């Protein structure tokens, strides 16, 4: 919208700003240098009176671009969030007066700091426009759920219950998935409040799995369309406008549009053939926990018989962690989390129908967490299930029966036990498609060897589940051991493909109850993503952000850096290999902007210019002034708050630094670095989030990508005959209150040693 820019400045003199700074000089700078027609001062700008002052100007059409000087952009957000105007905030409180000691000898440098922040804020806001939604989406309430198991069915039912239509795609001919063979399930509840804490009586025991009933409810629900024997052959688009081709063995492929997607493809049972030491495959009397469930279902409460000869089982051994919690080749390194309670339940099957049956569970750590879990452990003990802390080494044939060799860890002896049947508590293998970056590795490989290695990896990769028509691969990126994101403790549903949420054992191993709870959360996020897309608003972490990236086509060299580096695979390429941004897939981190070598990508309110102008606005004293200038580009999520709180804690920061918050270090354009060096900055400190495998970057790869780019900046410096140590990148956490300022102070000291930049005018 091409409304005329009306610049308006507001200076708060409260919280000591008035006392510590020469405010009339600040006003002069804004008006003379910043060309702001007016700068209004107020003793308490965040007060209702102050806010009204600003709002009145806006309402009067006197202000479309606001420069608010006072406290940090993190403070008084509620007061200063005015609608439909562009706002920049000069951080004079946390950024200047709180960060500097109140002593005469510091007055001058402190004032200079404030002057510059005014200049920067004035410059920034001029290059901002008010973001408006692209109008690309309309509300599409359809939700696609992939996976017909308990997780998928739960996601479908819960989504429908909220009034949203669902398409449920199930690759089998019946619903129920991997848990449909359950005879009974582990109780969902702990003992009721009226159960006395006595001799462990009346504890909840194994209960009906409720899956048949769930299938009925799904089939009967008019908001749910079920596609059996179906697969996704192509999924394209973005939140609010996903398009999925659903291949069905019965009938033609149907194409449906969706607002968002839930992937609930559950898990595959671990292949016990990898456990010859336990005699699996050698005798039918060694079963997995999954196979035993079928046996029990078939017996349906009757005596459980030994597969080999039909003898009623009088003794059974359960081997926990079979092929799990082990670094052996072909074993699962993790704990599948559900097997302890599962084995207790199955041992109780035997006890229930034959009180004389010896049931022994060989475990290392018995993992039955929570209230229901611990109750169920005692329930199993009450049923006289024997728990032995032991490590099984082998299962061998012994006449008609079996012999389990194990080390009893309590009695500290190698021993053995005879039994009719052995059950291996095997684990869950997540049922996911190929890791997109395995695929990308092939395309991106620089050497032939690399390419080959990548091909090998891809060759063993499972078939795709989503078949995403994305530049960055067909499926959701994987985190570890084949499980999907999220890697964030606080944000469990974060995935790196916007609007596609993972639920259940595809995220981490879990039991049925957890999978069902997880499905509800994923459904919540899917609904939210569809609603946000309709507003043209970003989802986590920049929730509600209406800005989105656009590019100057004429300037674009089709280099593909943006499409390759986008941490969320949001950007596709059109037939001429120009980027297609799919803004509802975009998380607004700006990594594409930082990637672009020709600076053609920008957001309405965050661009190469909006930052570059701040950098240029800073007054650079001459070489002999002994007043170096340090530019700090700080991640707004962690480093910037850390600096704010350091100031709040009274920790001193060098007066020579000028801090510019960035959405993510990934958005940092190398041009900012070179331009600032050319314009005479003496040092540059970049502060981003942790980027290793335990990354803290809220945009997943942004910080890592930035570090990669900047690893090459050293060459640029040497070309300019500048010392490489003038530019440094640090990982800074939000808790680094003492460290963050120290890093800036150290840069100042270092400049003191190596001298000022020669590039001053």
């Amino acid at each position, binding site marked *: 919208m091409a409304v005329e820019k009306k610049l308006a400045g507001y200076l708060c003199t409260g919280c000591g700003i008035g006392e510590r700074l020469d405010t009339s000089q600040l006003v002069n700078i804004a008006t003379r240098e910043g060309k702001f027609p007016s700068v209004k001062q107020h003793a308490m700008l965040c007060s209702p009176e102050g806010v009204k002052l600003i709002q009145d100007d806006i309402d009067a059409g006197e202000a479309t671009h606001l420069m608010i000087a006072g406290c940090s952009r993190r403070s008084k957000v509620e007061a200063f969030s005015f609608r439909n105007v562009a706002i920049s905030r000069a951080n004079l409180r946390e950024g200047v007066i709180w960060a500097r000691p109140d002593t005469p000898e510091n007055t001058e440098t402190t004032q200079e700091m404030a002057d510059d922040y005014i200049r920067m804020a004035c410059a920034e806001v001029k290059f901002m426009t008010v973001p408006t939604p692209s109008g690309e989406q309309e509300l599409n309430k359809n939700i696609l759920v992939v996976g017909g198991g308990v997780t998928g069915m739960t996601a479908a039912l819960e989504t429908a219950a909220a009034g949203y239509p669902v398409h449920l795609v199930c690759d089998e001919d019946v619903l129920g998935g991997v848990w449909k063979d359950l005879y009974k399930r582990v109780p969902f509840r702990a003992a009721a409040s009226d159960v006395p804490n006595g001799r462990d009586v009346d504890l909840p025991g194994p209960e009906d799995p409720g899956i048949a009933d769930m299938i009925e409810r799904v089939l009967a629900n008019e908001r749910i369309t079920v596609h059996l024997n179906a697969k996704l052959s192509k999924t394209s688009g973005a939140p609010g406008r996903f398009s999925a081709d659903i291949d069905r063995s019965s009938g033609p492929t149907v194409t449906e549009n969706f607002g968002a997607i839930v992937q609930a493809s559950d898990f595959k049972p671990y292949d016990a053939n990898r456990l010859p030491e336990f005699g699996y495959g050698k005798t039918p009397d060694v079963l997995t926990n999954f196979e035993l469930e079928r046996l029990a279902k078939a017996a349906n409460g009757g005596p459980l018989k030994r597969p080999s000869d039909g003898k009623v089982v009088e003794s059974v051994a359960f081997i926990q962690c079979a092929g799990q919690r082990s670094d052996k080749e072909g074993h699962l390194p993790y704990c599948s989390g559900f097997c302890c309670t599962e084995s207790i339940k199955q041992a109780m099957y035997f006890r229930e129908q034959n009180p004389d049956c010896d049931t022994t569970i060989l475990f290392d750590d018995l993992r039955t967490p929570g209230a229901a879990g611990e109750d169920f452990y*005692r329930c199993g003990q009450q049923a006289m299930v024997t728990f032995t802390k032991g490590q099984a080494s082998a299962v061998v044939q012994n006449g008609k029966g079996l012999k389990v060799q194990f080390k*009893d860890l309590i009695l500290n002896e190698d021993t053995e036990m005879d039994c009719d049947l052995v059950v291996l508590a095997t684990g869950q293998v997540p049922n996911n498609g190929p890791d997109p970056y395995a695929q990308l590795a092939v395309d991106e490989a620089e050497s032939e060897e690399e390419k080959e290695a990548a091909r090998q990896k891809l060759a063993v990769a499972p078939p795709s589940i989503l078949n995403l028509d994305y530049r960055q691969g067909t499926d959701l990126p994987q985190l570890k051991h084949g499980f999907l994101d999220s890697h964030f403790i606080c944000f469990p549903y974060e995935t790196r493909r916007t609007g596609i949420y993972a639920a259940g054992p595809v995220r981490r191993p879990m039991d049925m109850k957890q999978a069902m709870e997880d499905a509800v959360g994923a459904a919540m996020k899917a609904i939210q993503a569809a609603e946000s897309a309709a507003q043209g608003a970003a989802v986590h972490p920049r929730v509600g952000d209406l800005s989105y990236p656009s590019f100057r086509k004429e300037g674009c060299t089709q280099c593909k850096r943006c499409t390759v580096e986008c941490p969320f695979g949001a950007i596709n390429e059109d037939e001429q290999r120009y980027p297609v941004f799919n803004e509802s897939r975009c998380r607004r981190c700006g990594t594409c902007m930082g990637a672009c070598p020709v600076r053609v990508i920008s957001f309405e309110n965050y661009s190469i210019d909006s930052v570059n102008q701040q950098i240029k606005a800073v007054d650079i004293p001459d070489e002999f002034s002994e007043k170096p200038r340090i530019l700090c580009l700080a991640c707004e999520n962690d480093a910037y708050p850390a600096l704010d709180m350091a100031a709040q804690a009274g920790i001193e920061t060098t007066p020579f630094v000028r801090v510019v918050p960035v959405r993510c270090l990934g958005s940092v354009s190398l041009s900012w670095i070179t331009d600032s060096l050319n314009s005479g900055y003496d040092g540059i400190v970049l502060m981003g989030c942790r980027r290793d495998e335990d990354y803290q970057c809220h945009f997943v790869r942004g910080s890592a990508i930035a570090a990669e780019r900047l690893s090459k900046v050293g060459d640029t410096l040497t070309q300019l005959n500048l010392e490489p140590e003038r530019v440094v990148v640090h990982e800074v956490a939000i808790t680094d209150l003492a460290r963050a300022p120290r890093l800036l102070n150290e840069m100042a000291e270092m400049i003191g040693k190596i001298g000022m930049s020669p590039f001053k005018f």
Partner: protein
Amino acid sequence: MGDLNTAMIEKYRNRFLKEVEANVEEGEWVKMCMQCGVCSGSCPLGKFWEHPPQEIFMMIRAGKRDEVLSSESVWMCTSCYNCIVRCPRELPITHIMHGLAHYAKRLGLVPKNQPTAKFAQMFWDNLMVKGRVNELKLGLNLYFMNGIGDGVKVALKNQKIGLGMLKSKRMNPLEAVGGHAVKDLKGFHAVLKKAQELEDKRLADHGA
């Protein structure tokens, strides 16, 4: 009672936990142990045990029948109740230990010359005579429980104690003859005889 022992072996085969469950006082608690070891660490005589309670419970589950029943350990309990009040599963460990000891004795599996086993038996026999404990006789028996020779040594060793008790009128030589008793001795014996019969019957029912 060796035959009872064989009967029990017959009946329960290697299912020692079940045998304990059915025949040992409070034995039904053994299965609830989660092997945390708090009892073993709490026992004042712990360091003298070959097998502390929690280990005994594991041995029971592991079917180590003879090792448990013929173990000195089950006779190490001082009844201090530390284990009971600390057990996170509230197992009556003191009573289970007593129960195991008693059961071992019934099956005739007590190790030779187990002093506590002997003393505990003496104590019972002593009180059974007159319904009240005759400390003097009990003491004397105790001294001589390992034969005259031993007994004299112990007696001499404890002479000073005896004198001290005598002087403080806390030991009465006359107890050797007569001594305290319940008046209705006949009734007392009848009651206890009956109780023993019922007890034997209960065990026989399990043993059969």
